[in-house]
């Protein structure tokens, strides 16, 4: 059964003028974030969401997490509608966003995770063990009792991942999860994602990193200006370069790295 189902989803952000706008020059109008988007992701699949800035990747993840509500169409997670049964959807979804600062700065990593795990109704007898596990999985064992106000950007991002994992979600949403991670931590995360997929977790991963997409994804969802350009399975032999070529061919964007690569005499 499909774990995440998008059916003809449209999301529009309306820029409403502020009160007394006649004294300002605030922009009005609307931005079409997603236009009639339909796709599904099954348990155990890792879907890489690729697309330029503003293509709708983060909006897609936020709609699944119920942070956003769709203007048209339906988003279902585990058979529950994200608008009407948001509570049931939230129980199944873990999300780690790209700019991760959403913690209580004067609590330690462990205390933050304990707080969010409690709100996520992780059973009390399992909580401490699970927190230890995710701190280990994200390489934060040595920062367990450090106040997060002292964390670096990369540590924040790891803690965000730990928080998403601690509830053992059926659907894991990752928005540029390795943006601030070093190479070793990124590789470790990819191993973790593949392990989660083997445990039947559906993973949706928004990324600009073709290597990352090629390393972990079983399916590719390419978005451009809120529309799906392609949604298909990835072959095991498809490399990051293949994905790069596909991306630039379908989006019509200019790959500015190619002249530099050619000048350096490197194979493109």
């Amino acid at each position, binding site marked *: 059964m499909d774990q995440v189902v998008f059916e003809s989803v449209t999301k529009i952000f309306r820029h409403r003028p502020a009160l007394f706008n006649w004294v300002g020059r605030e922009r009005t109008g609307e931005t079409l*974030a997603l236009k009639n988007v339909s796709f599904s992701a099954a348990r155990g699949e890792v879907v890489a969401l690729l697309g330029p800035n503003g293509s709708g990747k983060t909006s897609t993840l936020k709609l699944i997490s119920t*942070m*956003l509500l769709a203007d048209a169409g339906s988003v279902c997670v585990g058979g529950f509608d994200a608008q009407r049964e948001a509570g049931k959807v939230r129980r199944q979804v873990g*999300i780690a*966003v790209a700019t*991760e600062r*959403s913690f209580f700065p*004067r609590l330690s990593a462990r205390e933050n995770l304990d707080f969010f795990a409690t*709100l996520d109704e992780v059973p009390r007898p399992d909580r401490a063990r699970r927190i230890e596990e995710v701190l280990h999985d994200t390489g934060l064992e040595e920062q367990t009792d450090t106040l997060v106000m002292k964390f670096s950007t990369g540590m924040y991002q790891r803690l965000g991942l730990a928080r998403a994992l601690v509830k053992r979600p059926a659907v894991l949403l990752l928005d540029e999860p390795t943006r601030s991670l070093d190479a070793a931590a990124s590789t470790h995360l990819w191993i973790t994602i593949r392990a989660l997929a083997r445990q039947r977790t559906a993973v949706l991963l928004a990324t600009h990193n073709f290597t990352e997409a090629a390393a972990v994804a079983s399916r590719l969802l390419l978005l451009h200006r809120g529309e799906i350009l392609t949604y298909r399975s990835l072959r095991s032999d498809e490399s990051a370069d293949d994905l790069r070529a596909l991306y630039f061919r379908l989006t019509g964007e200019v790959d500015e790295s190619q002249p530099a690569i050619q000048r350096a005499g490197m194979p493109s």
Partner: protein
Amino acid sequence: MNSSLDKLLAILRRDVLTAIRHRSGFVVTLVGVFTELAAFYYLSRAIGPGFRPDGVAYFPFLLVGTGLYTFFVMSAQAFLSVVQEAQQTGTLEVLMTTSTAPGELVILSSISTFAGSLTNLAVYLFAGIAVFRAAIHADISSCLVVLALSLAIALALGILAATFQVAFHKGSALLWLLGSGLWFLSGTMFPVQSLPRPLQLLSRAVPFTYAIDALRGALLEGRSIGALAPTLAALAVFAIALLPLALCGLSLSLRRARQCGTLSFY
């Protein structure tokens, strides 16, 4: 039920740990309490014992008025700060994706917030009575009823401030109204009867007026629940009207913010 208790304990633990680790905050609050009480004590001495508003000495009159008024404003401020901080750090969005329903989260958070404000009120009143010798003649049961109703009104005001913050990103405007616009209408520092007739009528639309009046009666004059019944009834009406209105407003503003993608805007 167990789960809700577990969540409440987690929220209380978070707030206590955060407060303890803001050590300077504790000290500044305590110094502020004593400085304010000292100022009121010497103000009442300067005015002299002849001034007895509502038949009580001026210092206890000020103690109850300013203590309870500060409780209302602090509660709303604390609630607003929680929402503003959550918007700035991005925790609001994440909290809205946990398995805890937003309504439950608000109620549980409010218990923690009001525990802090109530402790502050208790310290303020205790210091006024024990250190500055304010004369009291308390009826404990009526004091508790007044405090319970005041708590409900403060909760509603806090939720309304949070609603303004989520909807218009301007919860501080409501707070300004509470902090600056209403204090002189509610008999905090002088009897409402000193105001011109139209303002006296307006003061009757302010719940603080009834709360302060009732607590003065209960704490300083030992008036029973029966004797305070009309004032308590008015307070109850405010609580019954404001609480559902505030909860409904917050629910709508959160839904709208999720529709517009403005949950973390501030």
